[in-house]
């Protein structure tokens, strides 16, 4: 039995940001998540953009939160050493009809007080982005749109929250929330019972099921699948800005950008589904990404694709941000954060803490809070002198395990001994990019499995790819104890 003040359900971008924000106060916080790692679902599989909020619905809570989140990001990425690139976005138009749509978007941006959005000429856009469709006649420039390492964004906040006292319980699936006399009493997972005064539902795609546990579910959450392509860093056709298509009334469309690590990303699709586990990619939808992205950048070369993936955005019906206490005392719900979870998480965390205080939760500042988190030193980004120094300190930094992304054993060992450590192959991949390059782990995964097993002192067969049950090895093929000894 664990006793705490606040349980946060869900270790995605939103849950983790709230955990870190709460670690600035003298309060006990436990984060539970059914997955093997922090990073959630939608938070780890998305386009990795931190938006300014230029196209959010004017006057909405989402707009206010998104705008403040973008401001908070500048400071947070410095404190936590998170890779972040304010590359700016463009939205090109190829005809007058599209230019008219842009005008509305521009007007909305001003209503949202994003005054740095500008209308630019086709020539200016082609100068900025030479691979753009040459028929471009003009468009919008949104200079503060940025890309982030969306996974490290979550990891870094989790690590910092843990350093400041937050407890993370992963591989714990919430089965029930105990309510007594209209008041939250405990969160029951498949492994633990956690007595608590407050529960914050940050379960994203599954927040409806959690809300149902306290009988407060007047909405449903449906998955909206987004499929993506990632291209090799070496692909010939390169871009440097986020390139947004002209949105349609139903979808923001498929964009292109260069990720923080230099790969071209194309997507997402928007497919409304029922199955919350369906992360499959399909030939038809991938072909659609190709067609649509080529309209924006005709020379983009999809034969350089190194991977495809799908994420599920939690599509709340009815839509809209819903953040606040429920009727059950101690229950605090967050829903409707559909596709701006990464973008809005920092703002949401501030908003949630304020709402908690307004709702009578006594939160006293913890002035011992350490806002800083050191990133793992990256061999691939180090200078020769820095590399030499790293190797002198630890020879494991000389042993390159992932050749595509130049990740060393030193970095992997370091990651495994951090607060909120990874335990799976994908956990290492997402933190360090080992296995994310063009060979997709063909070369490094056998070695990474061995390193995880060695460092965590478990048999290699028990190392999963990601979720429990995603085992990689089926056992050793030659065992001692055979009767033949030569």
């Amino acid at each position: 039995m664990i006793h705490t003040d606040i349980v946060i359900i869900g270790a995605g971008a939103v849950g983790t940001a709230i955990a870190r924000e709460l670690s600035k106060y003298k309060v006990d916080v436990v984060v539970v998540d059914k997955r093997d790692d922090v990073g959630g679902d939608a938070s780890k599989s998305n386009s990795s953009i931190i938006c300014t909020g230029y196209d959010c619905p004017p006057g909405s809570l989402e707009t206010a939160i998104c705008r403040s989140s973008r401001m908070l990001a500048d400071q947070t990425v410095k404190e936590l050493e998170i890779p972040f690139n304010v590359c700016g976005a463009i939205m090109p138009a190829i005809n007058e009809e599209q230019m008219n749509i842009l005008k509305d978007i521009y007007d909305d941006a001003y209503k949202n007080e994003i005054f740095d959005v500008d209308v630019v000429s086709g020539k200016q856009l082609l100068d900025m982005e030479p691979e753009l469709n040459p028929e471009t006649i003009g468009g919008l420039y949104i200079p503060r749109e940025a890309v982030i390492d969306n996974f490290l964004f979550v990891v870094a906040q989790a690590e910092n929250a843990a350093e400041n006292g937050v407890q993370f319980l992963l591989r714990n699936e919430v089965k029930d929330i105990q309510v007594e006399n209209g008041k939250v009493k405990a969160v029951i997972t498949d492994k633990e019972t956690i007595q608590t005064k407050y529960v914050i539902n940050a379960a994203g795609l599954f927040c409806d099921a959690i809300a149902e546990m306290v009988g407060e579910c007047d909405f449903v959450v449906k998955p909206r699948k987004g499929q993506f392509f990632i291209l090799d860093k070496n692909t010939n056709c390169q871009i440097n800005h986020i390139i947004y298509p002209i949105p349609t009334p139903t979808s923001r469309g498929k964009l292109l950008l260069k990720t923080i690590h230099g790969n071209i990303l194309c997507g997402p699709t928007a497919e409304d589904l029922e199955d919350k586990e369906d992360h499959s990619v399909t030939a038809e939808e991938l072909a659609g990404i190709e067609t649509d992205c080529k309209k924006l950048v005709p020379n983009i070369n999809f034969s350089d694709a190194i991977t495809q993936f799908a994420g599920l955005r939690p599509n709340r019906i009815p839509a809209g941000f819903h953040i606040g206490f429920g009727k059950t005392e101690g229950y605090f719900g967050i829903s409707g954060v559909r596709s701006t979870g990464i973008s809005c998480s920092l703002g949401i965390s501030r908003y949630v803490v304020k709402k908690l205080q307004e709702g009578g939760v006594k939160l006293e500042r913890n002035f011992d809070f350490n806002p800083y988190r050191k990133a793992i030193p990256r061999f691939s980004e180090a200078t020769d002198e820095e590399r030499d120094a790293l190797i002198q300190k630890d020879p494991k930094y000389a042993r390159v395990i992932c050749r595509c992304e130049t990740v060393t054993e030193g970095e992997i060992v370091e990651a495994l001994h951090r607060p909120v450590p990874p335990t799976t192959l994908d956990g290492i991949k997402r933190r360090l990019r080992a296995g994310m390059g063009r060979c997709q782990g063909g070369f490094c995964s056998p070695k990474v499995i061995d390193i995880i097993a060695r460092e965590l002192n478990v048999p290699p067969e028990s190392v999963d790819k990601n979720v429990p049950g995603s085992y990689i090895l089926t056992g050793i093929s030659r065992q001692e104890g055979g009767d033949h000894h030569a």
Partner: protein
Amino acid sequence: MTRKNIICTVCPMGCNITVKADGSEIISIEGNECKRGEIYARDEFTCPTRTLTSSVLVTNAKEPLLPVRTEKPVPKAKFGECMEIIKATTVHAPIKIHQVIIHDLAGTGVNLIATCSRDV
């Protein structure tokens, strides 16, 4: 009369050879482009043999396994028996390449030998 189709693996030509036989007695061999094919087909028909390669557990070395092979081809039909013995075998480093690991593997009269050295 029985017919057996055999793809010759002696050279990259890959001749499709047909062996006609009455019981175990070969009546004709057709389809081979050279004499080596005929010999191959005859052997394949009467008693197909292969070099079996595998690995055994090795202790006291940097790597867990020692690659091994049969010194000469062994009857294909004996593979299962050979593998059971191989899987149950543990050796201790140091091992020298071509050192005999198992004498007379599974009664084939053929030795199993190391195909790699393993230092301590």
